[in-house]
């Protein structure tokens, strides 16, 4: 178990390095000069690049770490990151790490609450759907997950705000005004990913129920409860966990959108605000943070996976 966790941890760190390369290269492969683009947004709209001084551009290029050969740029940039320096925001002139850290709890609260909503919806719906496959409970759960997957979360968010905040006035609509504020954003984000998880769980449980070992378990005369909880559910959860990075990706990506809809004080909204000002260091810092969080969550899932499935060993783990 420990060896397994260690090997997954090594893989996770390798993935982290991969993401730094991607984040580093992104800024350098986009068409046009980033420094020029930043300076243009700081001037009046409509100004041409002719009005920028050569010296200003070079100064900003140096600040963004865009001068020198690529490998040297990367190593210097990576060194700064490893020392905990994500750079300085071009707009606020504050260290990005501090600004991010102030907003991380908001995003984590939203993500955790949404995961809770997801589990509360997906587990019963998926299990009921599979057990009653082809009957009304199944049709209902499938219809709901179809709706959930198809409704854009920004649209759902706006509708929920209208219904519960503006019309019924039960809940606050924007920002953080106490614990009840998290209800609407979490519902918005949670229902979307719940739909995907419900579908995965239903399909996986149905597949497990058609396995020969379920026939043998039934032939032993086991009770319903034992058949479902002991024999069917655990193997059925394994493929759901395998596909969980899809769901977690939806969770983090959706968080950016939902934070924008609800003016939620999280890293997503921080990043969206930075876009207009072409605050490239902030965009980079945000991407790195999200990738780290995603890799960490996937690591946790890998460990859970090992607990559920005695067959798995690192060597035989296959992607896809």
């Amino acid at each position: 178990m420990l060896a397994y966790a260690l090997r997954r941890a090594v893989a996770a760190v390798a993935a982290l390095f991969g993401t730094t390369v991607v984040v580093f290269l992104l800024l350098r492969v986009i068409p046009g000069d980033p420094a020029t683009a930043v300076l243009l947004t700081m001037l009046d709209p409509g100004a041409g690049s002719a009005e920028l001084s050569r010296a200003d551009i070079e100064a900003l290029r140096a600040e963004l770490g865009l001068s020198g050969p690529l490998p040297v740029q990367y190593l210097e940039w990576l060194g700064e990151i490893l020392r905990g320096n994500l750079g300085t925001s071009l707009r606020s002139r504050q260290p990005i790490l501090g600004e991010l850290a102030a907003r991380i709890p908001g995003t984590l609260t939203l993500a955790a609450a949404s995961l809770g909503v997801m589990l509360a919806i997906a587990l019963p719906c998926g299990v009921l759907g599979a057990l009653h496959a082809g009957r009304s409970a199944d049709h209902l759960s499938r219809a709901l997950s179809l709706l959930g997957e198809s409704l854009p979360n920004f649209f759902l968010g706006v509708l929920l705000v209208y219904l519960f905040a503006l019309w019924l006035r039960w809940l606050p609509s924007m920002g953080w005004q106490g614990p009840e504020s998290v209800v609407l954003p979490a519902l918005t984000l949670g229902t979307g990913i719940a739909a995907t998880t419900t579908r995965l769980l239903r399909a996986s449980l149905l597949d497990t129920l058609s396995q020969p070992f379920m026939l043998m378990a039934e032939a032993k005369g086991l009770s319903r409860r034992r058949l479902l909880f002991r024999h069917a559910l655990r193997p059925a959860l394994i493929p759901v966990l395998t596909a969980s990075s899809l769901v977690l990706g939806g969770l983090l990506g959706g968080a950016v959108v939902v934070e924008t809809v609800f003016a939620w004080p999280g890293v997503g909204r921080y990043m969206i605000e930075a876009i207009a000002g072409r605050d490239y260091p902030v965009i980079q810092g945000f991407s790195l943070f999200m990738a780290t969080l995603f890799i960490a969550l996937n690591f946790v899932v890998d460990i859970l996976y090992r607990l559920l499935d005695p067959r798995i060993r690192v060597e035989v783990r296959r992607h896809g």
Partner: protein
Amino acid sequence: MADRFSRNLGAALRRDPLGAVLLALVGALVLLCLLAPVVTRTDPTATDFARMLMPPSTGNWLGTDDFGRDVFARLLFGGRTSLAVAAVAVVIVMGIGVVVGIAAGYFGGVVDLVLGKLIDVLLAFPRLVLAIAVAALMGGGITSLIVAISAVAWPAYARILRAFTLQVANEGYVQAARTLGTPVWRILGGHVALNLIGPILVLAMLDLGNLILAISALSFLGLGVAPPAPEWGAMLNEGRALMEIAPWMVVAPGMAIFLVVLSANYFADIARDSTEGRAVHGPRDWIAWRRPRAAPAPPLPAAATAPLLAFEGVTVDVVDPRSPYCGRRILHGVGLSVGPRECVGLIGESGSGKSTLAMLAMGLTRPPLALTGGTVRLSGRDTAAWRWDDWRRVRGCHVGLVNQDPLSALNPVLTIGEQIGEAMAAHDAVPPDARPARLREVVDEVGLPASVVGRYPHELSGGMRQRVVIAMAIVNRPALLIADEPTTALDVSTQRRILDLIRDLGQHYGLGVLFVSHDLRVIARVADRVVILREGRVVETGATAAVFAVPREAYTRALMAAIPGQHRQPQVAEV
């Protein structure tokens, strides 16, 4: 192929009115968007501050926005942008995904390693987050939107298609094509790609919805088309601050996105679903709302004179109208009985209905099959009225089952000890305090070391797993054992040992055994009596030795003649 596809689609839509309605709605919407310049003469960007925030009316079907622009015109022109971006993105994503996936999957080696690492790194980001970052760095606009969406969406496809390709490349027909000397490009086109078309189309369909959602989300965040030009996600963003005054500004684009995504998901769901349809095990009423009524009495054992198992004129049909074989008769009035301490061998080729008969004895007949005539008796009692709970008390206690494939017969996540132990815990045959001792005893009786109790099935060989299955079947000391091809999946040597084990245990416990097999040699080794089944009918029955010595029926003689090893190839002189 295209013909078959359209025929299938037509049939599916006739059976599915909801799908037809959805298809009609989204078809109309897409058509309206495509023909936008013809449908409406209004300029979607023309402002008119005299007509701001007008509710829907005959002049402006969907009202006007805060610049006095016609929402209907903006919806149609915006749809052109949204749908065009989605279409372009799907083509790019599928193009890259298919090429990379097939290349990595078929060629393997270095190609696979390099592409695999690239995919891994890109998948280390949450998809939408990376898209937002790319679009943000590129500074918005349609091009950056398409690039951002395509760049993040292809790795997932490539990975799935790589897995599919690996699967197809290991199929016999690709291996055969390689030995036939078929050129690689023809293998990739004719075998691999042709057999991937189905999955590729389903994937494209599935992700079309996701791509549209991602595109509109980026536009909503202000990373799509520049402001005055309309786009659904951007329109929604413009309208959300005015939700209370002008809900139509939000509802119109929101519903448009919803409708398109919903129909994409709906048809993807149908396409994916067509692969389902296997028999599902377990009770039909999983959630027993009413406690099962107390059964009249423990159903077994009863009169010692009655046979343990008796089929009387048993008829089984395919009754599920959805099955393509609906109405086919599997068993035609089969009669058969198994007495105490007797081993009956049931011989039949594939499709003879022998396994159906075995399942019938356990009450495990599943749709699309159903018992439509005759009686199944256990120890003389008619089982016709038995419900799942009645059967449950009999299964594993009075009747044990050993089936064909030991590799899939054990639950992969439970230890051997748990799986044998729970068979005891489910019944009262062994008192709780005697269970640990009985577990050790039964493991020893089937010839396994005591250490297997803590092991998982994947740590055991096929022969050992079949011994575990036998241990589960006999742990409660049943009267009757159903063995359905228990040695077919095993090696010659393992086969003989398992056969001898079943025979010895049968004698030790005084079991009645119904032994199903297609192999006359196997049956001859274990059975006292044989029943020969052909296409659902009993052809011949009698004592084993007598039947094989003097077969009465031509079919029996043909089966006997077909056993290999009775003739010898003349030897050639040179070697």
